């Protein structure tokens, strides 16, 4: 059972698995969200396997079989997994599911916009302040003040702010996720947050919530884009990738080389009546299908180094940079505290207030200690 709405990978895996195992039939059922999946698990007809976006269900103790013993049975598999990924996936000392839908953000920039402005392309050693200076040069507003080109394409979501916080040496939460007090309210977080809010309010290089724009879609009128793999994949699929270059997130004063990671997982439920067969299927689905990660059609990253090689990702000018970045991922706040994660929209409302009303950043961050 899955709560993904893109089902092509599952359907492909089902077809090839059934072909290789003629006596087995895999039934795919869709659920609208984590809650429906949990209800299905609790019912008398629990699915053998559950695939879910995010990590919320995989934090439920005893809901999934630990896959590490199965992994150990396959020679070389443990070493083949990307270690950055496994640091996050095995944070509780077990592996409740095989990572799927693996994504992280980098900066994708429009080479033609840099060329017309006579600016050099950014490189991995660039700083946040340098990025802002570039973004200001690359923001073009008409006489009416409406931008037809923005320097930086970035949304408003606490989760997407997090890599910049991490890179400044800050964290939203304690390592075990038990509290945000003494973390989210600390100077490194406040400093990075102020810089981000200034990008909207002072530098005016990001489209503010509700701001009129003539810049079109993200791939059209934005010079630098905070782009996850889903977006990068879209560029490649639509033949636009030649226009873009890719570079790491800018360095923050804290000087830490970190990034966030987004992923879900496919796990074998503890109620499964066929755990070994279920493991075989999730392994086939997540680890044996290089075709799912061909640079020409992929939108997410593979879990193993061999898949990255075999699929051709490591040779691709854009995808290879994303694969490389996996070495630097850290565990985000939303993976380790459901309370923090559940408060996302309340927090985002506060970020809107910072951007639109100039609400005091330090005061708001301090008040977020109530969320975890």
């Amino acid at each position, binding site marked *: 059972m899955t709560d993904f*709405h*893109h*089902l*092509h990978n599952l359907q492909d895996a089902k077809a090839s698995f059934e072909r290789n195992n003629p006596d087995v039939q895999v*039934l*795919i*059922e*869709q659920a*609208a*969200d*984590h*809650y*429906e*999946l*949990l*209800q299905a698990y609790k019912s008398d007809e629990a699915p053998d396997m559950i695939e879910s976006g995010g990590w*919320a*269900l995989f934090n439920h103790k005893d809901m999934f079989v630990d896959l590490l013993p199965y992994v150990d049975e396959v020679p070389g598999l443990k070493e083949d997994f990307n270690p950055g990924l496994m640091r996050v996936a095995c944070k509780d000392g077990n592996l409740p599911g095989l990572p799927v839908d693996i994504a992280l953000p980098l900066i994708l920039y429009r080479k033609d916009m840099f060329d017309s402005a006579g600016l050099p392309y950014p490189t991995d050693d660039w700083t946040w302040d340098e990025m802002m200076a570039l973004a200001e040069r690359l923001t073009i507003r008409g006489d009416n003040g409406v931008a037809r080109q923005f320097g930086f394409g970035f*949304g*408003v*979501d606490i989760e*997407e702010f997090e890599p910049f916080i991490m890179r400044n040496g800050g964290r939203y939460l304690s390592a075990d996720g*038990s509290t945000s007090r003494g973390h989210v309210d600390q100077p490194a977080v406040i400093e990075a947050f102020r810089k981000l809010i200034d990008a909207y309010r002072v530098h005016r290089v990001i489209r503010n919530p509700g701001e009129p724009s003539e810049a079109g879609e993200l791939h059209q009128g934005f010079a630098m884009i905070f782009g996850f793999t889903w977006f990068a994949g879209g560029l490649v699929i639509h033949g636009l990738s030649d226009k873009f270059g890719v570079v790491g997130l800018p360095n923050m004063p804290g000087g830490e080389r970190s990034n966030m990671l987004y992923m879900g997982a496919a796990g074998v439920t503890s109620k499964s009546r066929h755990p070994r067969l279920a493991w075989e299927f999730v392994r086939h689905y997540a680890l044996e299908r290089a075709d799912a990660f061909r640079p020409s059609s992929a939108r997410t990253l593979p879990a193993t180094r061999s898949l990255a090689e075999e699929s051709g990702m490591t040779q691709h000018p854009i995808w290879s940079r994303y694969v490389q970045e996996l070495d630097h991922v850290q565990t985000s706040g939303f993976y380790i505290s*459901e*309370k923090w994660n*559940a*408060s*996302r*929209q*309340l927090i*985002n*409302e506060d970020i*809107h207030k910072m951007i639109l009303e100039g609400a005091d950043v330090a005061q708001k961050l*301090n008040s977020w*200690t*109530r*969320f975890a």
Partner: protein
Amino acid sequence: MRDYDPSGVRIARDREETEEERHSRVLAERAQLGDTEAFGELIERHRSQAKMWAERITGNPHMADDIVQDALIRAFLHIGSLHDTSRFLPWLHKIVRNQANMRLRRGGPYKREKPFAAFGSAEGEIDAVDWDDLDSVLFHLTRTAASEANNVHDPAESLMRKELYETIHSVLNCLNRKERDIFEAYFFKQLSPDEIAAMYRMTTGSIYTYIHRSRQKLRQAHVRVSLGLLPKGGGKALVKSKLLQLPEWPASDAVMLSFIDRIGQMLAAVGDRRDMAELMGISGFAFRMQISDRTTYADGLYMFDWRQTLKAFMRELGYETTLLCGQLAGSPVPLLGAVERFPVVLPIEEAVIPFIRQEIDAGRPVLYFDTAASRPYVHEWSLIYGYDDDKRTVQLTDVMKPEGKMLAYGDIALNPVRFLASVRRIEDPARAARTRAAKGMEGRRIAESAILLAIAHARNPRAYCPMTAYLSYTSGLSAYDRWIGHMRGDPAVPPNRYGAGQLAAAYSQTRRYAAYYLRGIPFQGEAMRLALLASEAYEQASETLAEFSDEVPFVRTAEALSPEQCGKCVVWLERAKAFEAAAIGYLEKAIDHSEKGKSI
């Protein structure tokens, strides 16, 4: 008589309360019922005052912030113990002062807490209450209740409270020291089992066992109370049951949007039966359409600001709403787009059951969001119309069970979405008289407002935007395009079948109600003719969507839709959209004529 608070907050009881005091009192009363929004408003009003007090005591603005935070949590936990709601401010002041003193005693915010248990202090020294120590709090509450029983106007009420505190106290005495510590940490300090486990160097599992065991002991004590064994001679008012008689509500007449259907039933239960077409029309739900941008999941049906919508709609109908609202953190929550904006709350029975008891006792059923709805539904609004302290269950409605069903108190507390509401008629005779006198005008105003709402919704592709980049919905006429896009779709993203079935059934029905509603509005002349044309167009849209619904019925199935079925559905959706676009065009003209009619 004057009452003097040593902090300098002077209370004059022999004068009329000011508007500000009245408002605070009403908020405190609502907060006591568990209305988290009311509590939030109270806090907004008094936070800076609280900070000033804390700063004055500690001389440290940072520590003052922490103190206020802790004091507010404590105030929230204990607001039920505030006997005189007009004294919220002095009461809050005491909590702030106690918190500040405790911090100072501890030598700073991060020193390990050493509970102060000198609760047996001299009569009148209520400042000695240590709000972190359950014994002290209970002792204080019991004593206050006893002395109030001697002095205030309603001794029965205070005595009942006294019994309650004594009961809690006695029950807690059944627990051993460790059980009590864990119980206190869990219920009063709001620590999670993981945090408690870390504190006591135990496993989380054993913490759960402790909490479970304590709960069982409490339950046994409850039984004893019901038998009159504890406390001596008391308990008569503590354990009760009550079942309200709900009005007949045949399933054949029910509206699929359970939000409106339950509101209709709730009003009928208090003797105010309304026409469903009127409720659907005035609320705007007859005209709404919202489709997820991801696929044909039916969550768009539930995506709106629940709190604001319910309050505004009930106000329009002449009712005031009391809300209990939140989400649990430890469990996945459905309908994130709407629910993630609720505050995170703890699964504590005491936070919900007293509210249910009180409303049922007053003869009012409680609107409740049931996340254990019977299949094919996953979650729906229901009405709680009975409770039984002995069995520890509530009785509630379920769309698929005409006879109703029972849920345990524990299940209510563990519902990951906490949304309970009750309504009371606003006593405003002047308004009622005005309405009666100008019924024609009032009816026209309401209809115009409903139609303007319908037009605004139809023309707005983003009527509801969750505060997250991960979820988005398309609304109004554009929702048809989104839906068509899903059905026509990329084979990689096949339309979700059961979701599409629910959407078709629900929206076919809402369009039928739009047609009914428009037939009954008090417009005249050309405006009415246009409204009737719009009604006809909605009827056609409804029938077209019904064909979709017949092809894809709302049942839970893993079966995928065939390309042929999707093709047929696309044709129906395109046709329904054309009808609805025509209806909106007629309504825009009808409003123009109605406006002209007024200016003539």
